[in-house]
């Protein structure tokens, strides 16, 4: 990696990514602290922080590429976070709505059934409800 411009370019990119990461990471947590209620707070970390950590991961990748190590495994972490962040937010939201009995505040589903946190699911079609009582472990 002798070529000077690439080095500088990479370094600039790394710096930029780190700064972006820092800013978004901070904003995400700031939003978490600042916003008025949980539902709004939920927006801050799930998005901003994702970009924050994503920026850091990209920065790391670029940094190592520029220093001659071919590394892509940071991608895995990014992938993982993209996969899990919505689930996390979803679960937190459900927990919040449930714990605060916010059923009345929600818009109607427009269906025969209410929101899943408050209304039991219909039984599955033709199959009888496969219910089992106190299953025994295989080995016992």
């Amino acid at each position, binding site marked *: 990696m002798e070529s000077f411009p690439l080095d500088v370019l990479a*370094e600039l990119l790394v710096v930029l990514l*780190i700064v972006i990461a820092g800013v978004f990471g901070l904003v995400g947590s700031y939003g978490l*602290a600042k916003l008025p209620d949980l539902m709004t707070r939920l927006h801050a970390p799930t998005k901003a*922080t994702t970009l924050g950590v994503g920026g*850091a991961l990209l920065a790391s990748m670029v940094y*190592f590429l520029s220093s001659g190590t071919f590394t892509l495994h940071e991608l895995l972490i990014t992938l993982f*976070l993209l996969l899990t962040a919505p689930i*996390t937010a979803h679960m937190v939201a459900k*927990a919040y709505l449930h714990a605060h009995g916010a059923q009345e505040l929600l818009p109607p589903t427009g269906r025969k059934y209410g929101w899943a946190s408050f209304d039991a699911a219909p039984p599955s079609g033709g199959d009888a409800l496969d219910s089992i009582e106190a299953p025994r472990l295989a080995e016992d």
Partner: protein
Amino acid sequence: MIEYALLFGFGCFGLALGLNLWRLAKGPTIADRVLALDTMVINGIAILMLFGIQFGTTVYFEASLLFAMVGFISTVAFTKFVLRGDIIE
């Protein structure tokens, strides 16, 4: 230059951690606290990445990966607890 950027990054994420702690302590709901914890983990991963850059090593990769996994599961467990009480049913 990267050093300064890193310093900036550490400052930002450090501050972010502080804000997370504040939310964690203040609540007011369990959901807030769980969210704060989850955010804390993610900020932690970012910090680990920056460490990796600072020290020029990929030795923190496994830790980051695990942090991501563990943070997710903790959050799911806590929220399932709030939802159902029983997290495996």
